[in-house]
C-alpha cells in the first residue's frame, strides 16, 4: 500500500474541512464577531496546513488500489473526527477532550447524540460548524474531497465502491460520473430546498440552514436545547419530516425519480416497505398514545408519533416529545425502527430496510424450500435476482449487528446503566440514531454517562457508520491482499 498516496487524499478531505471551518468563522463574523471566531479561524488554518502539506509533496496518483481506497475512506473518517474536535477544544466551555471527541464523532457519523447540557449557550459560529460536521458526514467525507478534485480518473470509482454499503452498491446502475452528480444534485438540492421551506415555515435563516443540514444528514443536531419541540410549529415539523424521509431513501433512486427514469421511488419495493413501515408504526403508536390519554386528541398523538417515528427511522433523532413517557408499545416500536432504519444508499445508518426485506424473503424461501426440496427459488428485490453472496452478506451483517448490540449493551451495563439505557444506547450508537430511552431519552443527552461509556459510544458510532465490516477490516490491513 502506498501510504503517501493515502495521506494525499486524506489531505484533500482536510482542505475541504478547513473550508467549512472558514465558512463557520464567517458565520461567527456576521454574528457580531462572536467568541467562536478565533477558534474557528485558527482551526481552519491548522487543518488547511495539515491538508495542504501532503498535497504539496505527493503527486497525484493515476490509479488507486482497492486497499488504498479503503484506507483513504476509513482514514478520512477518523482524521475528520480528530480534526473536527479542534474548534470545540479551542473554544472551551463544556468541551473537554472526551466531550469534543464525542461531539465530533457524533457529527461526522451523523449520529447527532450530544454531551452538551446547554446548546443555546454555544456561539452561532460553533453551532454552524456542529451542523456542518453532520452535513459533511451525511454523504461521506471522501465524497466531498472527490468532488473538488478536477480529475481523478479511475480512482473515483474505486473509492466509491468502498464508501457505499454492499447493497447500495449492487443497486447502482449508473456510471461513476453520474453517481457524483446524483450526490451533489440530490444532497445539495435537498438541503437548499429544506432551508427555504423551513424559513417559510417560520424559522430564522440560521436555524433553517442548520436544521436543514442536520435533517439532510439525518443527524438530529439542533440549535435549541428542546430540539424541534422548541418551535412548537406543525409546519416546521412537516417540512423536517419530509426532508428526513427523503434523506432516508437511496439517493440513486431519488435521482432517477427526478430525472424521470423507470427505476424510481414509486416502483421501488424497498421504498414502499420503508414508507409502509413508518406509516404503520406512526398509526399504531398514535393509537396507543391516544388510548392511554397521553395526548388529548388523536391528531395530536399522530403529530408527535409520526414525527418521532420518522426521526428515529431515518436515524435523525430530532425530538418534539419526551418519548420516555410514552407507552411500552410505542417504545418497543421505536426501538424496532431504530434497528431497521432507512434505505441503503441514503445518509441513514442502521440495519437498513433493504436487509430486512432480503432477510424476510430468505426466510420465506427457506419455508418454501422445505415444502418443495427440489424447487429452484431465487430471491429478488425490485426485479433483480440477488446472488447467494449478497444474501449471505446480508445475513452475516444482521448477525454481526445483533452481536455488536449485545456486546455494547453489556459494556453499558457494566458501568452502571440500567437495562433500557444500556440496550437503547448501544442500538442508538450503532445505528447512528442519537437518542434512545432511559437516561438518554429524546430530551436527554450523553453528558451524564461516565467518560469510558462516552468513549465506548464513539467507537460504536464509528463501527456502525463503517457498516461493521468496514471497521473490522481496519485491523487486518496488513493481511489484506
Amino acid at each position, binding site marked *: 500500500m502506498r501510504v503517501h498516496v493515502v495521506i494525499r487524499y486524506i489531505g484533500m478531505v482536510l482542505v475541504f474541512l478547513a473550508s467549512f471551518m472558514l465558512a463557520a468563522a464567517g458565520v461567527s463574523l456576521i454574528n457580531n464577531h462572536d467568541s467562536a471566531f*478565533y477558534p474557528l479561524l485558527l482551526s481552519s488554518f*491548522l487543518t488547511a*496546513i495539515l491538508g495542504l*502539506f*501532503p498535497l504539496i509533496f*505527493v503527486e497525484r496518483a493515476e490509479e488507486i488500489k482497492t486497499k488504498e481506497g479503503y484506507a483513504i475512506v476509513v482514514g478520512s473518517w477518523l482524521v475528520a473526527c480528530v480534526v473536527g474536535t479542534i474548534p470545540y477544544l*479551542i473554544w472551551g466551555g463544556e468541551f473537554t477532550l472526551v466531550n469534543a471527541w464525542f461531539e465530533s464523532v457524533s457529527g461526522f457519523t451523523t449520529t447527532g447524540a450530544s454531551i452538551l447540557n446547554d446548546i443555546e449557550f454555544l456561539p452561532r459560529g460553533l453551532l454552524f460548524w456542529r451542523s456542518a460536521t453532520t452535513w459533511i458526514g451525511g454523504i461521506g467525507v471522501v465524497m466531498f474531497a472527490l468532488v473538488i478534485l478536477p480529475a481523478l480518473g479511475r480512482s473515483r470509482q474505486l473509492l466509491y465502491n468502498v464508501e457505499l454499503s454492499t447493497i447500495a452498491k449492487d443497486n447502482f446502475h449508473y456510471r461513476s460520473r453520474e453517481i457524483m452528480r446524483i450526490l451533489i444534485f440530490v444532497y445539495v438540492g435537498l438541503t437548499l430546498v429544506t432551508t427555504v421551506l423551513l424559513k417559510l415555515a417560520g424559522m430564522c435563516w440560521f436555524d433553517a440552514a442548520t436544521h436543514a443540514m442536520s435533517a439532510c444528514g439525518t443527524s438530529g443536531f439542533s440549535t435549541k436545547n428542546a430540539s424541534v419541540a422548541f418551535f412548537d410549529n406543525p409546519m416546521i415539523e412537516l417540512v423536517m419530516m419530509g426532508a428526513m424521509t427523503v434523506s432516508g431513501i437511496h439517493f440513486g433512486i431519488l435521482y432517477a425519480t427526478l430525472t424521470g427514469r423507470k427505476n424510481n421511488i414509486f416502483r421501488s419495493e424497498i421504498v414502499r416497505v420503508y414508507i409502509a413501515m413508518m406509516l404503520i408504526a406512526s398509526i399504531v403508536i398514535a393509537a396507543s398514545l391516544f388510548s392511554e390519554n397521553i395526548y388529548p386528541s388523536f391528531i395530536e398523538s399522530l403529530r408527535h408519533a409520526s414525527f418521532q417515528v420518522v426521526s428515529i427511522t431515518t436515524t435523525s433523532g430530532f425530538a418534539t416529545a419526551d418519548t420516555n413517557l410514552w407507552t411500552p408499545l410505542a417504545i418497543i416500536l421505536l426501538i424496532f425502527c431504530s434497528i431497521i432504519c432507512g434505505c441503503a444508499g441514503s445518509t441513514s445508518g442502521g440495519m437498513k430496510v433493504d436487509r430486512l426485506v432480503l432477510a424476510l424473503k430468505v426466510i420465506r424461501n427457506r419455508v418454501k424450500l422445505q415444502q418443495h426440496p427440489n424447487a429452484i427459488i431465487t430471491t429478488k428485490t425490485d426485479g433483480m435476482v440477488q446472488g447467494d453472496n449478497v444474501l449471505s452478506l446480508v445475513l452475516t451483517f444482521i448477525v454481526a449487528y445483533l452481536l455488536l448490540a449485545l456486546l455494547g449493551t453489556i459494556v453499558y451495563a457494566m458501568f452502571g446503566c440500567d437495562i433500557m439505557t444500556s440496550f437503547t444506547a448501544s442500538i442508538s450508537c450503532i445505528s447512528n440514531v442519537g437518542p434512545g430511552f432511559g437516561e438518554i431519552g429524546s430530551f436527554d443527552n450523553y453528558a451524564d454517562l461516565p467518560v469510558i461509556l462516552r468513549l465506548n459510544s464513539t467507537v460504536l458510532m464509528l463501527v456502525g457508520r463503517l457498516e461493521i465490516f468496514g471497521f473490522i477490516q481496519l485491523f487486518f490491513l496488513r493481511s489484506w491482499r
Partner: protein
Amino acid sequence: MQGVARRMRVAFLSIVMLLFFAGATSLLELERVSHDTEQLLMASEQSVEIAGDMLSALSDQNDAIIYMAVVGDSSSRYRLECESSMSMLNSAAQRAYDIMASSEYRGIADSLGKYTRELNQLAREWLDGDVHRRIESLNLNDSIPSLLTPRSWYVDEYKVGYINLSKQVSQYMTSSQNTLSPEVSRLSHTARRSVTPVFISLLVMFVVVMMLYFFLKKLYVKPILRINRSLGDYLTYKVPFDSNIACRDELGELRDRIETLISKSNK
C-alpha cells in the same frame, strides 16, 4: 507543485507560519488573560478600598459623636470631623453602589446606602441641635425629668445605627469578594483557552514535521539512494541502469539524464 526546492520552501514556510500563528494566538490570549486579571485585581482593590474608607469614616464619626454626646466636648474640631466623615461615608456608599449596581448583590449596595443615610441623618440631627431641642421639649412638657439624655441618645439611637452600618460594611466586603468568584472562574477558563491553541498548534506542527520526515525519506532520500546504487552497480558490474523510481520532479529528470548519458556512452 513540481520543483523540489519549491516544495522544501513551502514545507518550511508552513512550519514557520504554524509557529508564528501559535505564538500570535498565544500572545493574543495571554493579553486577554492579563487584561482580565488586571480588571479582577482592580475590582478587588477597589472594593477593599471602599470598605476601608467606610470603616475609617465610620470610626471617625463615632469618635466625634462620643466626644460630643458622651464626653460633652462640643468644640468645632469634632463638628468638622463629623461633617467630613459624613461626606466620606456618602461618597463611599455611592461608589459601592456604582460597582455593584449591575450585579446580583445590588441589594447589599442598596442596604449599605440606606444605613449610611440613616446614620448620617442621626449625626446631622446632633449637629443641627435637634437632639438637644428634643430633650429640652421633653423636659419642659413633663414634670418628671426626661429619660432622654445625650448619652442615652448615643447608646439607644446612634450606636444602633453605627452597628447596623458596620455589619453592612462587613457584608459588603464579603459579597464583593463573592462577585469576583465568577470572574475568577471565567479567568481560569480563559487561561485554559490561551494554552489550548498553543498545545494544538504544537501537536499539528509535530504531525507536520513527522510527515515532512516521512515524505523526505520516501520521496527523496530513498530514490537518491536507489539511483546511486543502480549507478554504482552499472559502473562496477555493468548491470543495466534501472533505478525504478516514479518521480516527475528533478529526481525524475536526474534519472532520465543518467539513462541518456549511459545510452550515449554505450553507443
